[in-house]
């Protein structure tokens, strides 16, 4: 393998060169380097608009890259240790979709944890694949879902030897990792492809003190949200592929749904961010780890909050923990995570990533300073002083094994009727029902509704869990399949 020069950023360089050429634009976009839309140019800046251009000679084409985009993708592949890296401009959702559409056709089975991102199950609506779910296990003290147990994957493969692929979340939103390497070896032994949702794991590729990355673990595909910890622009992302993947066919799959007008703002942001990560990633994430560790120690020192970390590791459902994540359990303060989330925003002008019933997650990155971290810690200390309440009984988490009666695709396109949720037992569900926490789907299209499920939805709703998905946002009614009983 020839080592490429990671100091280069071919897309960025081509755009810089273009600026010097004074080409007269008689092509789209119609704002013509911003001159045709002064309001927008004043808002976003001339520099930004001047590189919002269409694919042209010397700038390559994202649908069929042979020039600077290809060079930039090769550099990214080498930086991430992949056989190929595709620049994705339709978000990580589109990378996940492409992994699914590449690996599965109608009727094919895929083994996956129940706590997947919705985009995965949505992709099954497109291709007609059938999910085989694994119970991700729940830490009931913290109220978070965990990783997949290796033994559960063994069992699922034994029971479904015809499955085509295994899907792994690594890490989860909360920073929990599964035993990716061993799961990958097992899947490969059974001729199954391994796809990884690595949306929250870009940094794994650039610092040795972090959990193993998908490519290092030998996985076949990984969707990497460069715009999360990698620093690129929102909606830009990477799809990484290993040796088992036919990269030309994958390009065809990506082109099924990705735009033909790839944004050069997004692509140059991927290019420049890759260069920065390769050259400085180690120091960057050393700093992030240090900031997160410091914040964890100080927050645990306040009392009643629990900022958790590697002590959760049990070599199974928590195989490893991403220490850059600052996840904090708030139940000791007697406040729901979402209440702390709101107080931080409304009282202290601090916006955090999310709050669920029992936890908050503050996203720490290289953009943070000691000062920001002190503000966060100081605010949490104040919230405890001013708003602490007696601990309330926590939501009892219960994993209900889904009964998949048909593919999400079949259920999605079937004729449906809206029914009072209380009388839907026995019917087949036509839509998603998600509960936060613990962020696991309770129902997905094509699954049989049971009394137990209905009771759980009512209970979780009473306990303040946020229920999302159904068309009826009050969750009084559910769409079920006609004649599905």
């Amino acid at each position, binding site marked *: 393998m020839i080592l490429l020069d990671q100091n280069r950023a071919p897309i960025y360089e081509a755009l810089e060169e273009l600026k010097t050429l004074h080409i007269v634009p008689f092509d789209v976009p119609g704002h013509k380097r911003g001159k045709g839309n002064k309001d927008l140019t004043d808002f976003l800046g001339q520099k930004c608009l001047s590189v919002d251009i269409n694919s042209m000679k010397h700038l390559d084409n994202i649908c069929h890259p042979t020039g600077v985009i290809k060079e930039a993708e090769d550099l990214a592949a080498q930086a991430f240790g992949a056989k190929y890296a595709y620049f994705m401009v339709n978000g990580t959702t589109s990378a996940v979709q492409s992994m699914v559409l590449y690996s599965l056709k109608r009727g094919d089975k895929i083994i996956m944890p129940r706590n997947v991102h919705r985009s995965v199950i949505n992709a099954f609506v497109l291709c007609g694949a059938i999910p085989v779910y694994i119970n991700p296990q729940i830490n009931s003290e913290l109220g978070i879902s965990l990783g997949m147990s290796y033994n559960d994957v063994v069992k699922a493969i034994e029971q479904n030897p015809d499955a085509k692929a295994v899907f792994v979340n690594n890490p989860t939103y909360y920073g929990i990792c599964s035993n990716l390497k061993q799961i990958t070896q097992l899947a490969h032994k059974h001729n199954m492809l391994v796809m990884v949702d690595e949306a929250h794991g870009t940094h794994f590729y650039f610092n040795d003190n972090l959990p193993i990355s998908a490519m290092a673990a030998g996985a076949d595909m990984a969707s990497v949200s460069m715009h999360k910890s990698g620093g690129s622009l929102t909606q830009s992302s990477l799809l990484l592929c290993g040796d088992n993947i036919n990269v030309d066919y994958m390009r065809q799959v990506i082109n099924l749904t990705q735009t033909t007008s790839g944004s050069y703002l997004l692509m140059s942001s991927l290019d420049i961010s890759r260069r920065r990560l390769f050259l400085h990633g180690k120091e960057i994430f050393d700093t992030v780890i240090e900031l997160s560790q410091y914040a964890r120690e*100080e927050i645990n020192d*306040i009392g009643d909050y629990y900022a958790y970390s590697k002590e959760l590791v049990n070599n199974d459902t928590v195989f490893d923990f991403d220490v850059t994540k600052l996840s904090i359990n708030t139940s000791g303060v007697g406040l729901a995570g979402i209440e702390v989330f709101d107080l931080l925003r409304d*009282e*202290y*002008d601090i916006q955090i990533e999310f709050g669920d019933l029992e936890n908050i997650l503050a996203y720490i990155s290289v953009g943070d300073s*000691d*000062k920001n971290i*002190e*503000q966060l*810690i*100081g*605010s949490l*200390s*104040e919230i405890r*002083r*001013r708003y602490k309440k007696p601990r309330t009984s926590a939501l009892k988490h219960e994993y209900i094994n889904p009964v998949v009666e048909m593919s999400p695709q079949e259920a999605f396109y079937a004729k449906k009727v809206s029914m009072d949720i209380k009388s839907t037992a026995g019917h087949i569900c036509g839509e998603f029902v998600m509960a936060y926490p613990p962020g696991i789907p309770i129902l997905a299209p094509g699954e049989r509704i049971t009394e137990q499920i209905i009771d759980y939805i009512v209970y979780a709703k009473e306990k303040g869990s946020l229920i999302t998905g159904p068309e009826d946002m009050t969750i009084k009614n559910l769409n079920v399949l006609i004649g599905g009983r």
Partner: protein
Amino acid sequence: MEFWYSEKHTENVYLSIKVDKQLFSKESRFQRIDVFESLEFGKFLALDGYMMLTEKDEFIYHEMITHVPMAVKPDTTDVLVIGAGDGGVLRELIKYPTIKRIDVSEIDEEVVAVCKEFLPNTACGFEDKRVNIYYQDGMKFIRRHIEEYDLIIVDSTDPFGPGEGLFTKEFYGNCFKALKEDGIMVNQHESPFYEEDAAAMKRAHKRIFDSFPLSKVYQAFIPTYPSGHWLFGFASKKLHPVHDMNPQKWEALGIKTRYYNTNLHKGSFYLPNYVEEMLENVE
């Protein structure tokens, strides 16, 4: 040759001081530190390009931020000073024999060293036995103290740069927590005059007003600060800055001052209408 220090007070207004020579310049971990020698103002200190103090007018700021709360609560024994790397507040505080402990939380050790070297007339309180200096972020220092201090003086830089955290609601809340039941917090409160400064001033007042039962603002005239019209915040759990001040008692201490006196103390809480209006709007 002419050498001028120019500080942008707004996009359209500069304050320029003719400099004789630059005595010191260094980028510390937190900020850029410069010391100049000028013909009009003597030596002066700038942090990140903003004037912090000049030898000619620093007495106004340091007397007003110290003697106002001390005259309201002359039985003060425990004081916390946040910021104050130049030592001017300490110089005023050590004039009170009743004070037993002065804790200082200053983030930047280099500022202290520079002031001791170049501005010895200001930085002269550090050696007093009652002074304990902690080189750490005030936000962090304050979190660990509960009902310990009679007085907290927040002598911060502006609400951008290293001092930003010292203008937040969580910081004021933590100060409240660290004060005894009749404690007082006084802070550098920006200026009401130019728009951007006024916005910061209003934000700070709102946050203090929400954190303390009693929150007042007083003023002084400091020629080298933007517009020259400067405010201080007086926040307390119980004591009123004018009604609870005993002029005879303070005067009996015999402390020599050049700007502060007890009449001016009262007068400094009478504010121009436009300032009163700004404050009322956020209360």
